[in-house]
C-alpha cells in the first residue's frame, strides 16, 4: 500500500511533518465510491448536488472502486447484496475507509425485526470507520460524518508502536492463532 507500508521506529521532526503532510493529503481528498443502495443514496446525491456540495471539501465521486478512498454504504444491505459489498470493499485500494450511512446499514434500522432478507448492520461483513445515524440522515449529517472521518485520518500515524506495545499486541494475537 504505497508509502504507508513502511513504518518508522523513531519519531523525529522530519517524520512527524511528513506524517502530517500525508495525513493532510488523505483527509483532503476523500473520493467516495459512486454507488447507492436505497433511500440514503438519494440523500447522498443531494449532498453531492449544488445545495450542499461535497466538492467544497474535495470529496468527489469515482465510479470504479479502484480509485475510491471511501465507501459510503448508503442504504439497506440485503443478504443478496452483502457478498457484493464485501467484494467491492476488497476491490478498493488501501488506504480505504467506510462510512455507514443510515440506520439500515448501521444496524438493520427499521428492518431489524421481521427483515428476513436484511443484513443487520454492514459491519458484519466489512469494517466500518464512521456511523452516521438517521433514516435517512440529512445531508448535514453525512457531511458531519465526513468531518469525523477527517478527524480520524489526521490521527493516523506512520510511526511504529513502541516495543512494549508491540509485545502486548502479539500476546493478544496468540490465542487467535491457537484457535
Amino acid at each position, binding site marked *: 500500500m504505497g508509502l504507508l507500508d513502511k513504518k518508522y521506529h523513531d519519531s523525529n521532526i522530519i517524520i512527524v511533518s511528513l506524517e502530517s503532510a500525508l495525513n493532510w493529503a488523505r483527509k483532503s481528498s476523500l473520493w467516495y465510491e459512486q454507488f447507492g443502495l436505497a433511500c440514503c443514496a438519494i440523500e447522498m446525491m443531494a449532498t453531492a448536488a449544488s445545495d450542499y456540495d461535497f466538492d467544497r471539501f474535495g470529496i468527489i465521486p469515482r465510479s470504479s472502486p479502484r480509485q475510491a478512498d471511501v465507501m459510503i454504504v448508503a442504504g439497506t444491505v440485503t*443478504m443478496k447484496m452483502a457478498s457484493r459489498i464485501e467484494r467491492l470493499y476488497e476491490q478498493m485500494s488501501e488506504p480505504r475507509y467506510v462510512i455507514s450511512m443510515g440506520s439500515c446499514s448501521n444496524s438493520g434500522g427499521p428492518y431489524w425485526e421481521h427483515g428476513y*432478507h436484511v443484513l443487520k448492520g454492514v459491519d458484519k461483513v466489512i469494517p466500518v470507520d464512521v456511523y452516521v445515524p438517521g433514516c435517512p440522515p440529512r445531508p448535514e449529517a453525512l457531511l458531519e460524518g465526513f468531518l469525523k472521518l477527517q478527524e480520524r485520518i489526521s490521527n493516523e500515524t506512520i510511526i511504529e508502536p513502541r516495543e512494549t506495545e508491540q509485545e502486548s499486541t502479539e500476546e493478544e494475537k496468540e490465542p487467535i492463532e491457537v484457535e
Partner: protein
Amino acid sequence: MTTEEITEYLNREYGGNLDPTYAEAGDSWITVSPSVLREVAKTLRDDKNLQFNNLMCLSGIHYQKENELGVAYHLHSTIHDHKLVMKVRVPEDNPVVPSVESLWKTANWHEREAYDLVGITFRGHPGLLRILTPQDWEGHPLRKDYEQQESYRNVSTGI
C-alpha cells in the same frame, strides 16, 4: 360491468357455475378451480364483451387455516373499463397453478414472485426461478409458518 354481471354473463355464455363471493367490506371476487383457470382467463381476455387486456396485479396468498395457497388475479379492461377479481386456491402440499404468462406477459415476473415468496408452482411458466431472494434461499418467506434461516452463506441473518 360489475362482478355480478360478468359472472352471470360467463355462466350464460359458457355454461359455467361461477359464483361471486362477498366480504364484509371491499371488493367481491370469483373463485375458479385450477383446472379451468387457463380457459377462463383466455375467455376473459378474448371475449368481445369482456376484453380484460390488462392484468393489474397477481398476488400469491397463504391461507394458513385452510392449509391452502391462493392466487388472486386483478383484471382490468381498458376498453370497457371494468374490473374483476379472480381467485384460485390449491392445497398446500401440491400447489400447482397453470401459468397465465402466455396471455399476459406481465404475469411473468409476478408469478416468479409468487413462487419465490409463497411457493406456488406455475405450470407452463418459461423460467420459474426465484426473483427477489437469492436462488439458494431456503423456504418461502410469505408463508405464515415461515422460519427465517439462521445464516446465509456464512453471514448471520439475525441481529
